[in-house]
């Protein structure tokens, strides 16, 4: 159980149910598919059945002539390329010239109803020239006959190559007493959020375009719409209704969102595009299929001397966040341990498959699995306990990594200590019978990317506006995007905490670009840290004006006053106070309704070398997990009955939400270990459904014990850091290392399905390597 000591705050640090919870559980919350507009019609997408093909010509006449069809669009109408990163704009709303994967959008129709729209799609005739299929990233590393994109490196399919070297890795390995190597292979996995993508768009006679969309980042969508449709941003209004999960899958501006808006412009009618699950799989932007090679050197005492890491990551058809991914697959090795020498080579290669992108714990997950399994191998070679090895090498607080990450708060050592004790590690490790085992996995993650994607660092990454009027209700505006993780609740709670009011006074408004000040949205685990600081600043500004008004009313100096529950009074004089409403009305006498604004910009940090900003963040979360596994050695099936999760998110501001994030992360991480896998035959996705994409069932969830041990972060709002992505990472290696403890095999290929377990046991038996007497 998390510790339950009372904190210094009235609301924050407690367990705060989601403010929108009652609307969600009663079905009243409005999601994009709930949006109905007068005269709304249906948009449908034609997807490429070819893995790679030149589009020679297209004939839409028959489709266009079908009664009920209002528009048929092909790529030439809005050909401006876009993409989430300004440096890699290689996507178009609809394929221009080439189709690059099975599922790529090649045409779109708007029609009065679904059946007509689908009929129309079947009438669009393409003449194509098949092009070579590139389903294996290795095949794209050198010059190829037909690069998937012209921007590939030197005629290859390499989208991005990163080479970094800090210190002297060769010298470190030369003087090492012990070295280990682990090569991991990871299937692609996808977010599998609950709500399929949906967009509604309406162009109105006042010259404006309104777009409702299930997005994590309304602002980047706003920009992409403007760029591709060539309409100034101020004439576009982006609204984010409730969103049923994203996990990174709704963080890019996506082609269908632009297509939907384009169809609305073309037809003058409101248009809705709603995805099937299969569409979601083709849109993907999930975790990159990855092959990595991790070498670690240490001295005889177990001090880490250096990492030498390579990664080959498969991008699919587009760049998406891929440049960031390519950096992250290296630089996210720089914690939670001191690494004095570091070399990394990473390549991201386009393939003719659905695009990979950002998925929860983006860039840090596959790398971390390989590092943590290598560290356990290192501990074994050194004859030391995995905990002791990690404790010896833990990054200290207020330090700088060799690649110039600024580490401020870290409670990593507390994580290790707590989870070692609670899990009963010392009595279990190598002591459970054959088939059962425990494993340690650790992690760290950025608490908000220090580099905003589209801004100069001079602009704030988050702004929050408050307005309070006669009624005493506080309207909160911000473009932070609640996608189910609880950021609306946190926003309301921070405002209520600072002002001393009940939570029910605070009304977080729907994200609407007309009225919401820009916040960069829900990615890189940035919301609590950045929006939280902006909200605090806004609320404190409002509070100061209420205190000044109260001081006038009471005839006391402002500095003698304090904010209490729904009141402002003289410190130490319980009878001398004004109510919140009285203070408010007094303050309004001069200005009418009160408004306040707060913002957050992250401090300058990082080195000056190429790529130095990748991975820099104003704070980092830390984790140490222990998993226990129980393997059926005859079938290779296994269970994870227990998992102890020690996590440092600084101060947990809403324990209910933090625990939910940790449990959900564990479930998602277990999925990648146990069975989730986008399976391909050449470039063809074999399992685009939730029946054959094996998300773990509730029965597969371990009993989870969460240990929140973080100390306050000096810059986080009320001491908080992220808890949305970091909690996933440690899950995978904890299970991988537990499997080794159970059966003596370090599984290098994920997911670790039962057939792979048996194959591992067969290999071990063939090598006559007994384990725990078996």
């Amino acid at each position, binding site marked *: 159980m998390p510790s339950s000591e009372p904190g210094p705050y009235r609301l924050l640090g407690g367990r705060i149910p989601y403010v929108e919870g009652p609307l969600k559980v009663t079905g009243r919350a409005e999601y994009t598919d709930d949006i109905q507009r007068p005269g709304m019609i249906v948009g449908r997408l034609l*997807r*490429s*059945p*070819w893995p790679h093909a030149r589009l020679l010509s297209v004939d839409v006449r028959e489709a266009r002539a079908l009664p009920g069809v209002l528009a048929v669009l092909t790529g030439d109408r809005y050909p401006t390329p876009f993409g989430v990163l300004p440096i890699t704009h290689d996507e178009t709303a609809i394929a221009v010239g080439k189709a690059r994967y*099975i599922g790529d959008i090649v045409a779109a129709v708007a029609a009065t109803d*679904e*059946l007509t729209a*689908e009929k129309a799609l079947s009438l669009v005739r393409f003449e194509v020239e098949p092009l070579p299929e590139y389903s294996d990233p290795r095949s794209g590393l050198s010059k190829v006959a037909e690069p998937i994109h012209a921007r590939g490196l030197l005629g290859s399919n390499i989208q991005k190559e990163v080479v970094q070297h800090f210190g002297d890795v060769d010298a470190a390995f030369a003087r090492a007493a012990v070295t280990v190597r682990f090569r991991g292979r990871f299937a692609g996995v996808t977010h599998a959020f609950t709500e399929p993508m949906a967009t509604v768009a309406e162009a109105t006679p006042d010259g404006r375009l309104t777009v409702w969309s299930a997005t994590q980042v309304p602002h980047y969508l706003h920009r992409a719409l403007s760029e591709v449709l060539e309409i100034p941003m101020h004439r576009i209004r982006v609204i984010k209704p409730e969103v049923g999960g994203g996990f990174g899958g709704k963080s890019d501006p996506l082609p269908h969102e632009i297509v939907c808006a384009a169809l609305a412009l073309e037809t003058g009618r409101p248009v809705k595009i709603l995805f*099937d699950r*299969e569409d979601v799989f083709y849109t993907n932007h999930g975790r990159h299929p990855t092959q990595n090679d991790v070498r670690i050197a240490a001295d005889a005492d177990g001090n880490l001397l250096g990492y030498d890491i390579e990664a080959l990551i498969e991008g699919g058809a587009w760049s998406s966040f891929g440049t960031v991914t390519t950096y992250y697959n290296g630089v996210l090795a720089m914690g939670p341990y001191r690494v004095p020498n570091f070399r990394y080579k990473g390549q991201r290669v386009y393939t003719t498959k659905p695009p990979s992108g950002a998925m929860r714990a983006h860039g840090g997950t596959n790398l971390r699995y390989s590092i943590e399994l290598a560290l356990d191998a290192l501990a074994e070679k050194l004859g030391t306990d995995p905990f002791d090895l990690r404790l010896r090498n833990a990054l200290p607080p207020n330090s700088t990594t060799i690649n110039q990450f600024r580490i401020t708060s870290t409670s990593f050592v507390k994580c290790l200590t707590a989870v070692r004790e609670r899990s009963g590690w010392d009595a279990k490790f190598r002591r459970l019978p054959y088939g059962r085992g425990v494993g340690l996995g650790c992690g760290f993650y950025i608490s908000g990317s220090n580099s905003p994607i589209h801004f100069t660092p001079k602009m704030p990454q988050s702004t929050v506006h408050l307005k309070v009027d006669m009624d005493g209700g506080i309207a909160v505006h911000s473009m932070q995007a609640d996608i189910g993780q609880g950021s609306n609740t946190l926003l309301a709670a921070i405002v209520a905490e600072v002002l001393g009011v009940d939570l029910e006074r605070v009304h977080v408004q729907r994200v609407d670009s007309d009225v919401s000040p820009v916040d960069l949205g829900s990615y890189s685990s940035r919301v609590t840290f950045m929006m939280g600081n902006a909200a605090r600043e806004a609320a404190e500004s409002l509070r100061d004006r209420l205190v000044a008004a109260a001081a006038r009313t009471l005839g006391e100096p402002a500095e003698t006053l304090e904010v209490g529950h729904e009141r402002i009074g003289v410190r130490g004089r319980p009878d001398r106070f004004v109510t919140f409403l009285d203070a408010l009305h007094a303050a309004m006498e001069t200005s009418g309704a009160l408004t306040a604004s707060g913002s957050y910009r992250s401090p300058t940090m990082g080195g000056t070398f190429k790529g130095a900003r990748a991975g820099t963040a104003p704070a980092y979360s830390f984790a140490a997990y222990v998993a226990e596994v129980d393997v059926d050695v*005859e*079938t*290779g099936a296994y269970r994870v009955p227990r998992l102890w999760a020690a996590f440092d998110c600084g101060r947990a501001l809403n324990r209910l939400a933090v625990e939910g994030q940790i449990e959900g992360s564990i479930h998602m991480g277990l999925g990648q270990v146990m*069975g989730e896998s986008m399976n391909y035959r050449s470039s*063809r996705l*074999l*399992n*685009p459904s939730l*029946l*054959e994409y*094996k998300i*773990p*069932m509730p*029965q*597969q969830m371990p009993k989870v014990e969460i240990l929140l041990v973080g100390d306050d972060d000096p810059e986080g709002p009320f001491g908080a850091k992220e808890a949305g992505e970091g909690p996933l990472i440690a899950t995978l290696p904890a299970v991988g290392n537990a499997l080794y403890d159970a059966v003596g095999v370090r599984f290098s290929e994920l997911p670790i*399905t*039962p*057939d792979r377990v*048996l194959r591992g046991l067969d290999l071990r038996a063939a090598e006559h390597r007994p384990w725990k007497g078996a």
Partner: protein
Amino acid sequence: MHLDPFELHRPTTVDEVVRLATELAGRFDYLAGGTDLLPNYKMHLNAKPHLVALEDVRELRGHSDSRLGAMERLADLEADRTFGRTHPGLTDAIGEVATPLVRSSGTVGGNLLVDTRCFFFNQSYFWRSSLGFCLKADGDRCHVVPQAERCYATFSGDLAPALLVLDAEVEVAGPSGRRRLPLGALYDPGGDGIRRTRLAPGDLLVAVHLPPGPPGRRARYKKLRVRPSYDFPELGVAVAGAWDSERVRSLRLAVGGVETLPRRFDDLTDPLVGTPLTPEAVNRLADEVQRRVRPVHNTFLPPDYRRRMVGVYVRRAFAEAREGSAG
């Protein structure tokens, strides 16, 4: 994905069903629970213009210890604890079907006649069109076994193996009246993943009859799948019989989920009657069944693994067989 329009028929008697089925032969499907059929229709998998809903046919409902109406919901059988105690192996199988939500719609007859499955068949129209379709729907090629002239789609019902080992019979109504046949004879050993049964045009599965078993009969059904719910079987093994350390009095073994049809292995189990059921005998039986089955790569788990599990699951089914309270 959407359902194409179809005409829905709602007969109320078996005779009416048979008349409709004869009249619409080749142009209709029966709609039982719909949990498999309707998703398939959304994928435009061999969808027909007519659906004959069986929900209102009273005779197809209800169950007793010896008779299961074809339209009896799996959840109704599950909820009947007396039935569960009487038929332990069958209860195993029912409880392993999909999820509680599916079992609240899914029926006995629907599970016995559920369509075979394959990674290259159970896909959307778009997906299949990009591949060029297959023997089982809209095409002329097999993508699992190239050059195959027959379909290798996998039989994916859980109830059939469990009922086969109980010597269940099925009652079929047809244009020429009623008939009863052993459940095994419902499936066509000369058929394939497309033509699975010996039902003729106009035939309707009315009920399953369970003959009394030998005293002290035990049974067990074990299902292999990736996750503990939701998934179709990657293998199903059923055993039933009466045995003790002295001798086997009766024994049946059936396997489903690995080939196009469920199979019983009487030629392997009959010789064991009268002999003691030693661990060696169980091992020999398990090895021989494993040697005979031929899974192909058209489900999630690789075929060599599924085959290897046949032996393990047979041994475990024997070890875990439980006695039913009323034979």
